[in-house]
């Protein structure tokens, strides 16, 4: 395996549960040292992907490789190099949080000939503000997640598989989590981070994949994704900007305000034509200009907007596009 061979590589994965196609030709590739954001609503196939990566489920077709090996066949060897945080952390009710963490660290260091390092564990317990002496039965969802996170982050592994790891954490812990993931990245670890929290994915991810109905519909760096979508521009010009309305790569053109207070034109431009629009605007005499890159939410809505409108929910993106 060469240095730059992908840590995770999935090609045309298909997984069916009876009539349901949970993974539908899914392609995913994660490079060493990369934090990869994995976006999509519940039921899109994120957890199924994780479970295939862990070798708990076997794909119906397609190939999947972790560190160049088959996760179904070489599960034990591969699991020495990865740690997993399930979306719904279930712990053994009569263990304490500290015991549960140790169980995982011990299982992982077993057979490697060296004991795990308790300082890292204790430091993380401190930072995540967990009481390790309480029985896990009495923990809230957030606390159970902390246990799984600490167990995963204290381990010496190359890959972290995190399935909505902070769904139950408060904003303070969310900040700690982001800090710790930055450290993991600095240490050269790869992370597959499935999440609903867009700001988290935006802050942490090198690359992002958006999954829909078991298929990756968009994948790339955030700026690549932004490039592919529309930028919103609000501009006040000397002469009216109406002529832009008829240009093919300008959408949802409308004006706001009155001639006395100064008219503002608001419109969206396809990502790869922003430069052209700027040149045209320059000729009209710009008083002020605001350009918003698409938010991650808009990116996601672009792929899921029709789902929502089918359910009678209107989204801001939808309104602008139509």
């Amino acid at each position: 395996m060469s240095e730059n061979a992908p840590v995770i590589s999935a090609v045309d994965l298909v997984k069916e549960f009876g009539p349901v196609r949970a993974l539908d030709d899914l392609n995913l590739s994660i490079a060493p040292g990369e934090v990869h954001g994995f976006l999509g609503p519940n039921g899109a196939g994120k957890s199924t992907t994780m479970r295939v990566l862990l070798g708990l489920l076997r794909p119906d077709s397609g190939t999947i490789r972790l560190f160049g090996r088959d996760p179904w066949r070489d599960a034990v060897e591969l699991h020495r190099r990865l740690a997993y945080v399930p979306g719904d952390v279930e712990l053994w009710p009569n263990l304490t949080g500290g015991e549960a963490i140790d169980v995982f660290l011990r299982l992982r260091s077993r057979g490697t000939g060296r004991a795990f390092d308790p300082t890292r564990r204790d430091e993380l317990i401190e930072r995540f503000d967990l009481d390790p002496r309480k029985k896990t039965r009495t923990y809230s969802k957030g606390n159970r997640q902390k246990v799984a996170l600490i167990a995963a982050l204290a381990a010496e592994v190359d890959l972290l598989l995190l399935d909505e790891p902070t769904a139950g954490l408060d904003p303070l812990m969310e900040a700690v989590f982001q800090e710790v993931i930055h450290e993991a990245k600095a240490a050269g670890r790869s992370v597959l981070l499935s999440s609903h929290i867009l700001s988290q994915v935006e802050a942490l991810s090198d690359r992002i994949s958006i999954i829909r109905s078991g298929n990756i519909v968009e994948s790339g760096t955030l700026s690549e994704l932004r490039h592919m979508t529309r930028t919103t521009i609000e501009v006040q010009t000397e002469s009216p900007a109406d002529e832009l309305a008829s240009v093919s790569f300008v959408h949802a053109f409308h004006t706001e305000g009155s001639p006395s207070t100064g008219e503002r034109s608001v419109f969206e431009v396809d990502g790869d034509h922003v430069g052209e629009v700027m040149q045209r605007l320059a000729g009209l005499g710009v008083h002020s200009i605001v350009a918003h890159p698409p938010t991650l939410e808009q990116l996601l809505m672009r792929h899921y907007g029709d789902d929502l409108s089918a359910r009678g929910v209107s989204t801001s993106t939808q309104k602008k596009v139509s």
Partner: protein
Amino acid sequence: MSTTVSTTQHTPSPAARQATLSGTGTLLRFMIRRDRIRTTAWVLGIGLMGFYFAHAVQVVAESQEELLSVSGMYADPVGRMMVGPGFGMEEPTHERFYSGGYALFIYILTALFSAFTVVRHTRSEEQTGRAELVRANVVGRHATLTAALILTVAANLVTAGLVFAGAASAEYSLTGSALVASGSLAVGLFFASAAAVSSQLSESSRGASAMAGAMLGLAYVIRMGGDMAEVGGNALSWFSPLAWAQQTAPYVEDRWWPLALPVGFAVVLTALGFWLSTKRDVAASLIPVRLGRSRARPSLGTPAGLAAHTLRGGLRGWGIALLLTALMFGAFAQTMVDAADTLPEEMGQMFAGEDMMLGYLAYMALFMAVFVGAAGVSGLQQLRGEESRGRAEYALSAPVSRLGWLGAHLGVLLAGLLLILAVVGVGMGLGAMASLEEDGGRWFGELFLAAVLQAPAVFAVVGIVTALLGWLPRLAAPVGWVLIGFAGVMASFGSLLELPEAVTELNLYGHLSEYPVEEIAWTPVLVLSGIGIAGLVLGLLGWTRREVNRV
């Protein structure tokens, strides 16, 4: 303004008092909806059991001589220790035999049902956080506990009605039958209110149930001591809620006043429960939570350690229960020797061989082994639970192979079951040694061996269920319980049912020789062990090939 406040403080308006109960009706309907199957099953189950006991005693002992000899069991100190004070056993009738020998089991089940139901709707709701969701609505502080108690009391009333109908249908005296039924109601009320208190004390539902369960266990043990000492029980008996119901002496003295004790305590404990619930926050407990270790013992960090941790609790519970049962069964040895000549033919048919006592104990070894098999099925069901709750998946995300995970759990389970069988053997041996007037020690080794020799049957059950766990996991537990249930029915009534041989052959427990009455036959030992090994191998093979927790 301030005057108004002070007056309302001193004399809260009826409306304010009601407010703590708002939503009770809605919650009650909700609880009934949630419990429609569970509670119905309990109530019908207890009712049917009462009906069965009332009618079965007439079949077991038809004539007066038979009745005299079987009632003798319950008139003895050992019999009284097991089932009750033994009122009227010197002149037994069917109804006295029914209430003296079997009513206790109705009371115990009613107590368990009542305690579990109250804990289930109060503390476990708080523990899971669902109570918070409910209490955020227009729901009064006392509404949940009130609704849970109403549900429990109502279910107990229906149960008592069924118990009464069961006894009355056997043409027993109506007063006595009403007393047995009221006894069950009173015991139910007492343990419902005890659970209302324990739910305030412990933070976990397990803790709350355990406290109520410990109270039931204590009630049983206190009653054992009191009732064993003399016929009708001594002063000690008056300290046990279970004994209070029995002290009504149905069909003998027919006295109602002892029931004032459980009912009175129920009122006091309920009030205490309500009062305590105002002294704490939602989801908090009055007994501070005990903290555990912050670091795991080294043994936990291995698949076997994890398996032992998971299965230990269940195995320990079965082990203790079966040890006590074995001691008691063993302690009947002398009674069996005495009763050997006078036993009715029906009971004689259930036991193999001429020698009543050894036959009885060989039969008991088989009977206990069925329970050990049940412990095995329940352990395997727990493994399936580990899988469906996602803990197996999480454990397997560590570098643990599937083979290692299931192998470790099976190893712990089988070792535990073998240990329980050995403990059962020791228990029966000790019980027999203690009770037999002559040569007690002579049988110890044989009784121990009798229990351990049942291991192949238990092993075969575990093997079959494991094979299913590997290939058809959904069928594993149902098939396991059918195997155990069938074995239980065959052990209890098999010889009376006169089933075709093809059907009786299916009973895994029907093949081993009845040692010590018969010689050890090695063929069934080998065949059953073969089934067990094949099942384990198949199961492990399936488990390593199938997907984990496929939804």
